[in-house]
């Protein structure tokens, strides 16, 4: 049970602290409140596992501090931090039964047997493992093994946070949903801080109430799923989250207008004084661009193909050289390749050097 503060935390595996650009994890300062469900989302190699391992103490940071409830625990070993971690591949102790596996962390900490047994029984009940307690853990399925890994974290009543390192990788798709709902239920029942590392946006968005998107060793945005969707603060967040991802195209922005390919699009806010040296782009999600028959007032595009996702259709189009995705309104049939695009001005964002620019009203 703890609030976790990361203060200017950074790590370099090479040990070279001179050049922050080479860090696996670039300096980050953030606070995770007690009882929150957080997801660290990003592609492979973005530093999310490094960040997780720093918190659990498997890796010692090159720089910065980690505070649990305001207490600096950076120098403490993993054993001394009250952290539980569930790994990508289920870790179970082969020779032990399920019950012995669950009791292992308590036994190692010298908890009296009676108390130990009671705790194991309680956790087994929460995880629906009671019928298996006496069985050898090696004989179970991958999802049951993952539950045991999780159970070993939960049995400790003093645990400050549970860390998950892509825990559903080896689980069958139909069981993923079950296990994820189980995690949500446990999170509600136990009031624990949970931090969940994944590269799967569905997993992150359904599990967490705050998603921390990482890219190239940096935290690019931290927010609720809705915030990430509606107002991506970085172009990376735009196209990493959402399927298909956000359209990002270079544009000239002046005042309340953006010019793409010689055509002007209206913007909801005014963007004066953009840095002149910066690369200016506009970003708009495919959900907020409609395909229409070509018309004089519309940005003209050529349709390459239509993806029918069942509930909704997206057209892959081309504007000059830039690729673009747009929604195909229900009932709209495509007469030919040529089409016009209708933008929803309230959802068009402007980015300078990949970062969101706040316009003025």
């Amino acid at each position: 049970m703890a609030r976790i503060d990361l203060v200017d935390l950074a790590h370099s595996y090479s040990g070279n602290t001179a050049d922050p650009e080479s860090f696996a994890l670039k300096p980050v300062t953030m606070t995770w409140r007690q009882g929150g469900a957080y997801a660290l989302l990003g592609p492979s190699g973005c530093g999310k596992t490094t960040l997780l391992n720093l918190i659990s103490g498997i890796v010692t940071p090159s720089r910065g501090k980690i505070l649990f409830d305001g207490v600096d625990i950076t120098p403490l070993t993993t054993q001394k931090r009250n952290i539980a971690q569930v790994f990508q591949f289920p870790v179970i102790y082969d020779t032990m039964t399920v019950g012995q596996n669950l009791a292992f962390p308590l036994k190692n900490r010298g908890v009296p047997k009676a108390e130990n047994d009671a705790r194991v029984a309680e956790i087994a009940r929460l995880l629906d493992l009671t019928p298996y307690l006496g069985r050898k853990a090696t004989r179970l399925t991958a999802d049951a093994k993952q539950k045991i890994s999780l159970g070993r974290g939960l049995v400790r009543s003093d645990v400050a946070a549970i860390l998950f390192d892509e825990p559903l990788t080896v689980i069958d798709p139909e069981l993923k949903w079950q296990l994820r709902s189980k995690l949500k239920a446990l999170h509600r029942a136990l009031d624990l801080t949970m931090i969940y590392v994944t590269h799967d946006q569905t997993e992150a968005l359904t599990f967490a109430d705050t998603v921390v998107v990482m890219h190239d060793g940096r935290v690019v945005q931290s927010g609720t799923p809705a915030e990430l969707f509606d107002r991506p603060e970085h172009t990376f967040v735009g196209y990493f989250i959402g399927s298909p991802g956000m359209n990002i195209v270079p544009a000239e922005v002046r005042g309340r207008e953006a010019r793409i390919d010689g055509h002007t699009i209206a913007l909801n806010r005014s963007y004066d004084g953009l840095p002149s040296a910066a690369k200016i782009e506009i970003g708009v999600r495919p959900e907020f661009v409609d395909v229409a028959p070509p018309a004089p007032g519309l940005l003209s595009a050529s349709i390459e193909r239509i993806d029918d996702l069942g509930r909704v259709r997206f057209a892959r189009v081309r504007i000059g050289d830039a690729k673009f995705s747009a929604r195909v309104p229900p009932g709209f049939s495509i007469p030919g390749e040529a089409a016009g695009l209708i933008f929803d001005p309230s959802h068009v964002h402007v980015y300078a050097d990949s970062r969101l620019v706040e316009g003025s009203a």
Partner: protein
Amino acid sequence: MDKTVNQKAWFLVLPVFLVVAFSAILPLMTVVNYSMQDTFGNNQFFWNGVGWFKELLDPSTDLGERFFASLWRNLFFSTVILAIEVPLGIVVALSMPRQGWTVAACLVTMALPLLIPWNVVGTIWQIFGRPDIGLLGYVLNSIGLNYNYVSNEFDAWATVIVMDVWHWTSLVALLCYAGLKSIPDAYYQAAQIDGASRWAVFTAIQLPKMNRVLLIAVLLRFMDSFMIYTEPFVVTGGGPGNSTTFISIELVKIALGQFDLGKAAALSLVYNLIIIIVCWVFYTVMTNAGADRQANKGVA
């Protein structure tokens, strides 16, 4: 579909059959043939039925007594070297480095004894242990220990055992090292998080994960040590007296020393049978353990 019947296809098996016949079946049958007969040289043979086997398995006869005495010596030897080499190999493997250039250095150093031919190992220790010119023998005697493997039974045994440990612990260590290397880091990290002590990590993770390579190591070391011949033959020649005469040494004495081909053949068949049975037991145990693991993978 109709298949063409062509009995000439049997000719394709012929090369293999010939090779196996000359390399295994014919020599083995020759031995079986000898074991049923007695000879006084001159290529004259007399039928003896199962007489040699009866004699061999009856400890009250000379042959039986020699067989059982050497059999117990062999079993004792194998037990002792397994009891030393397996734990020692595990300890060595655990203390070997996991990364950096020292890994290669360690592996090469460890592999050296394994690369030395058996009779050279024997010669090395024979000279090493000599009280007059051998470093080991001289040092032991000069610090007041009366060490002489030629005249003292205990010293002879100690020399043969230490020699085997020196020669073969590397094999066990290398196998264990391979087993240890295959354990994913997550296991150690999970153990840290679970607050496991060094000993708990060993018993809960390392030992169970090593059990397969350990079985192989035990099997290899048992077979090899049960068939040991060259090193003790070079160092002690089976002495002092008969104290280090193992079955193989006894066999050579009977076959080539006394030229009792019938007795020697019966002895070698029984010897062979013991090794095959032990291997079969080990093989069954190992494949069962493997099938267990396979079944688990299937479920997972």
